[in-house]
């Protein structure tokens, strides 16, 4: 939970479905503005060994209708679960461990699913003491049936339920075929206005024992996240003005190869051609690949044909690239 490229620690109210929050974690909701998510929400002391956590706050007392859902999810790329051999007779057992803290107590629900959401294993965990970090460990026998991707698409969906209607609740402790987000009878975080649900140290590993959390260097963690999302202020795009100076083409090599060709959102960019400066904001065309991106821009006439063009370090221009699952 240490990387938060999109919001840099700011609180966000969840208004879209899905809506990414801290890196690799999205909120799934059927109704807007019922929860907020923030890195270190509430500023409680994280568990020993951790500095960050993902914090959910309920913004209303919401009773989910039968088909309503509220949950946090991480989708794990198929390449990273291939060794589990799920969907075969050799399916390996996994253990999921995490630290959780809530203003509520009781039985909470979470679920493991495949990408088509037609294989699922809901499981319970218990928080006995409110506002206290609790270590949870759950061991799950691997699924010997179903389709579990082992490529660059979604391999496993891991969901932590915050509340759901009856359609999306499943029986804990058994593999099934329903697309669910929590367990039958689980505590509903969204049911209480102001309720909190904080989580960190989430680890999914092969075997029946939860080993100690695998702390990785910050640079490694950031690079792993950048496979799925990258954000830039003044992206280092470099290129040239066209013959008519009406367009410019600029490209950059990405520091981390992304999971797939990314979706790009490009803000107004300050451009310098070695003589004049201007701002471009209209993308004519984009050429997006996992390892590089390139754009054609409409360019104001102040730039000179055939001159080099580059984004220079000024203003607050931004570019985001997303190859999320």
């Amino acid at each position, binding site marked *: 939970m240490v990387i938060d490229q999109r919001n840099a620690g700011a609180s966000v109210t969840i208004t879209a479905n899905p809506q990414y929050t801290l890196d690799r974690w999205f909120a799934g909701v059927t109704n807007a503005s019922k929860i907020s998510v923030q890195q270190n929400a509430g500023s409680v002391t994280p568990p020993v060994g951790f500095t960050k956590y993902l914090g959910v706050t309920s913004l209303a007392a919401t009773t989910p209708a039968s088909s309503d859902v509220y949950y946090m999810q991480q989708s794990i790329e198929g390449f990273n679960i291939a060794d589990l051999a799920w969907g075969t007779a050799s399916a390996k057992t996994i253990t999921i461990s995490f630290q959780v803290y809530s203003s509520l107590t009781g039985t909470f629900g979470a679920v493991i699913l495949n990408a088509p959401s037609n294989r699922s294993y809901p499981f319970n965990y218990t928080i006995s003491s409110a506002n206290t970090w609790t270590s949870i460990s759950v061991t799950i026998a691997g699924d010997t049936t179903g389709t579990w991707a082992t490529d660059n698409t979604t391999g496993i969906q891991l969901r932590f339920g915050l509340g759901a209607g009856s359609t999306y609740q499943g029986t804990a402790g058994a593999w099934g075929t329903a697309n669910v987000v929590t367990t039958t009878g689980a505590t509903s975080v969204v049911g209480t206005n102001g309720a909190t649900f904080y989580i960190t140290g989430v680890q999914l590993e092969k075997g029946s024992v939860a080993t100690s959390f695998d702390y990785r260097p910050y640079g490694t963690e950031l690079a792993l996240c950048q496979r799925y999302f990258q954000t830039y202020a003044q992206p280092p795009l470099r290129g040239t003005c066209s013959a008519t100076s*009406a*367009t410019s083409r600029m490209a950059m090599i990405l520091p981390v190869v992304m999971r*797939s*060709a990314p979706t*790009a959102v*490009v803000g107004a960019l300050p451009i310098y051609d070695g003589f004049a400066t201007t701002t471009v904001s209209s*993308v*004519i065309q984009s050429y997006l690949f996992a390892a590089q991106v390139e754009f054609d821009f409409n360019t104001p006439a102040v730039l000179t044909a055939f001159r080099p063009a580059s984004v220079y370090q000024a203003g607050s221009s931004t570019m985001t690239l997303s190859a999320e699952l």
Partner: protein
Amino acid sequence: MYKLLSDTIFGPATSVLRVSDGACIPCDPDNTDYAAYLAWLAEGNTPEAADEIKGE
């Protein structure tokens, strides 16, 4: 709503524009936003035509 981006002399359009947020979406089947665009097309929707390109 989506909009096609212009072809250029270097080749055909390789992405589409999502009008709501200005996102450029690559024509890559592994990109989830492109998958959403294809689903939108399958519902019978039609994207806006591309703007005329000014120069190259």
